[in-house]
């Protein structure tokens, strides 16, 4: 293999951000025609490294060779000229533009002064056929599926003549079926002479599709291995820095009475069409019900209806047998519901409030803290200090603004606050998104502890592994309805994947009509 050309070589790359060394003397070498994985936990520095390769950041130290020639990649333009293209995790697509407009943006074919949209569409169609990437050139991005949006992203790089494609966590938003399609697309691309760098933290994908893997931890390269010489356990240990088992230890659930009952709920989404269609489910005390589904199938809307942030147009929601349909968020919260929101920066915390102020976000008006309209900051501080100690939130002080804490500690603080309310039902929406393995384990333990204390837990996650490992029962949501409810121990990823893409319905699904 030594005769094969090295298409990308990064030597001694160091990149510092205020207060952190994101990349510390990183070396990466990728050969022509391989699919090379860049493995690391959230925050390990993978994306920073690839943004340097793509010209979005400049390294503080180190050099880059493309096709064995030293280069300076000062902007994405330079990267494009060198044949480097990037498929971003958060798609770089203008929602209101058509597929074609997005693909040709910045490189528009012209006819006189104006854009020659006909020849642009033809070019898109040609590329789409050549690589088997099916898209509708005239559709607007906001109207097409996530899978198709990703194909547009790939076509964008191909249109610019990219030979080296960087995929940044490409499977995060896809169904298992779409993931299979993507893997096929990657193999096609390599067959056509492209080289691929795959950024991921998912071991299974690496084993399935890659030739080689470079592991990064806390900004440093730990090792570079060939896939044929390694196994998932070894990769995991290298990624985390210790032996890890992704299996979650727990005793069997002892479900009791029904805590939450959702009966035929329908609700509108932001686009004015129904996001929830006659959805029904139940969560019982002492169990964790996981909701599996592809992003955008009504998960967020379901949680918003349950917590009072969105109105149901029909149906009922009962908590402990008491109807809470379309009650205010406060009255629902006071009825015994706690909620770990999916976006901790948007909903979970007031980032410029102190930790102390954040810990009473939903309880500041309780008599403990509120005396005749005046807040008792002594009591608030004491309460915060207690929770921060109990849940091991690492913060310089209770007066530190929430903004200054790491993502893991922010999430721990939210969980502390929600669990402390001693709810009958705890809703956890994507509770581990963007966190490292240590924090993920902590949060999983806390959720199971709630269950073992006889609480009902509703877990929503886009990570199928998390759903399968943590839940007792799994409800699959598809296009706003529950299409099946299965026992977590008795199901498989394939079965769930089929239901998530609408290919299979189970009798346990809530649509009885």
């Amino acid at each position, binding site marked *: 293999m030594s005769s094969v050309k090295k298409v990308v070589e990064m030597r001694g790359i160091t990149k510092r951000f205020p207060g952190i060394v994101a990349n510390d003397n990183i070396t990466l070498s990728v050969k022509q025609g391989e699919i090379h994985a860049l493995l690391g936990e959230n925050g390990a520095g993978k994306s920073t490294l690839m943004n340097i390769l*793509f010209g*979005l950041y400049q390294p503080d130290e180190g050099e880059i060779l493309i096709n064995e020639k030293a280069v300076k990649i000062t*902007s994405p333009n330079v990267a494009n000229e060198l044949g480097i293209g990037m498929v971003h995790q958060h798609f770089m697509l*203008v*929602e*209101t533009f058509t597929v074609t407009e997005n693909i040709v943006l910045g490189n528009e074919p012209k006819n006189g*002064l*104006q*854009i020659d949209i006909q020849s642009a569409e033809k070019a898109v169609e040609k590329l789409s056929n050549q690589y088997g990437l099916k898209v509708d050139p005239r559709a607007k991005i906001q109207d097409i599926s996530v899978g198709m949006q990703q194909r547009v992203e790939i076509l964008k790089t191909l249109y610019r003549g990219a030979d080296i494609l960087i995929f940044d966590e490409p499977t995060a938003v896809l169904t298992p079926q779409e993931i299979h399609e993507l893997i096929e697309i990657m193999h096609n691309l390599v067959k056509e002479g492209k080289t691929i760098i795959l950024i991921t933290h998912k071991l299974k994908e690496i084993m399935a599709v890659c030739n080689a893997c470079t592991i990064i931890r806390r900004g440093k390269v730990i090792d570079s291995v060939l896939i044929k010489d390694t196994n998932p356990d070894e990769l995991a240990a290298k990624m985390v820095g210790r032996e890890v088992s992704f299996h979650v230890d727990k005793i069997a659930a002892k479900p009791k009475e029904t805590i939450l009952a959702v009966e035929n709920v329908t609700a509108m989404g932001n686009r004015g069409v129904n996001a929830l269609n006659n959805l029904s489910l139940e969560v019982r005390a002492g169990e964790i019900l996981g909701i599996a589904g592809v992003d955008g199938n009504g998960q967020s809307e379901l949680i918003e209806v349950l917590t009072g942030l969105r109105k149901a147009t029909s149906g009922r929601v009962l908590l402990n047998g008491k109807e809470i349909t379309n009650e205010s968020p406060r009255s629902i919260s006071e009825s015994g519901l706690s909620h770990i929101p999916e976006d901790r920066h948007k909903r979970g915390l007031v980032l410029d409030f102190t930790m102390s102020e954040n810990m009473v976000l939903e309880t500041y008006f309780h008599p403990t803290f509120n005396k005749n309209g005046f807040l008792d900051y002594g009591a608030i501080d004491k309460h915060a200090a207690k929770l921060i100690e109990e849940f091991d939130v690492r913060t310089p002080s209770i007066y530190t603004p929430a903004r200054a804490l790491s993502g893991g500690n922010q999430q721990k603080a939210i969980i502390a606050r929600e669990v402390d309310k001693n709810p009958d039902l705890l809703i956890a929406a994507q509770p581990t998104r963007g966190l490292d393995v240590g924090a993920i384990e902590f949060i999983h333990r806390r959720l199971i502890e709630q269950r073992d204390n006889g609480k009902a837990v509703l877990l929503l996650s886009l990570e199928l592994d998390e759903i399968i490992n943590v839940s007792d029962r799994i409800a699959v949501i598809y296009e706003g309805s529950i299409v099946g409810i299965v026992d977590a121990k008795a199901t498989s990823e394939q079965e769930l994947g089929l239901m998530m893409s609408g290919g299979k319905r189970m009798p346990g699904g809530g649509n009885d009509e």
Partner: protein
Amino acid sequence: MDWGLIISNLVHDTIVFSTALIFASLGGLYSERSGVVNIALEGMMIIGAFTGAVLTYAFQDSLGPLAPWIGFILAGVAGAIFALPHAVASVTFKADQTVSGVALNFLAAGLSVYLTKIIFNGAGQTTTLSSVFTKWSIPVLHDIPYLGHAIFEAYPTSFLAFIAVFFTWYLIFKTPFGLRLRAVGEHPRAADTVGINVKKMRYTAVMISGALAALGGATISLTTTSNFSHNTVSGQGFIAIAALIFGKWHPAGAMGAALFFGVAQAIKSLVQIFGLTKYIPTEFIFMLPYVLTILVMAGLVGRSSAPAALGKPYDTGSR
């Protein structure tokens, strides 16, 4: 009463009063389509009205009827220059765009009167200009009864405003420049990753914005008022923003909305001409455009058509 004549007059006056609003709201369109909130349209109009009046005053004796053209064009240049600090603050220094715009409005109000007093020996307004724009009549067409007076007899600036609407539509929706400008306003990072210089686009847009708004301001001092004083513009820049929002950031929409607000001003002058002030207090007539703007804004449901990245500074190095 000849209703035909009244309506003909109303349409005629509407076009006169809308012209400034059309220029200014087109100006706002460039800036906001690129993602920069431009509440400074008012100040840019003031600078245009001031520059137009002062330069016309300076050249009217030597150049005669050509003087307002010089004043008009250079007002546009002055507006572009005046807009520069807003671009520096909003784009380079990632300032709060609303606050920066408000600062420029105050600056324009203060600076223009300050300079007027210096130039005109302490007077708070310029002397009345002897050479301003006169109305053009389109041959043949302006002889059409009623319609001719209504539409085909107007200041040259009005005709220019309508041309600017068409030109803007073509530029924004048909050319690579327009596609890139819109991309920068919707998703600057996406634009950046395909090699579009976000900052340069936004600087360009804000300066075009200043130029057009200033042309709008100059329209006022060089057609309807024939001088410049502290209340020449009096809020029309903000009405232009309302027109832009009402028109959903589309050139034709903004033009339509500007014509709508122009009616309010035209009614104001009609009421005075017909002596209706006996029945309606003048103060209420003066209030009309502002009240109408509030009502229109309140009547709009949702603002989903605003550019997605409007008001958000673009940070290249953010993690």
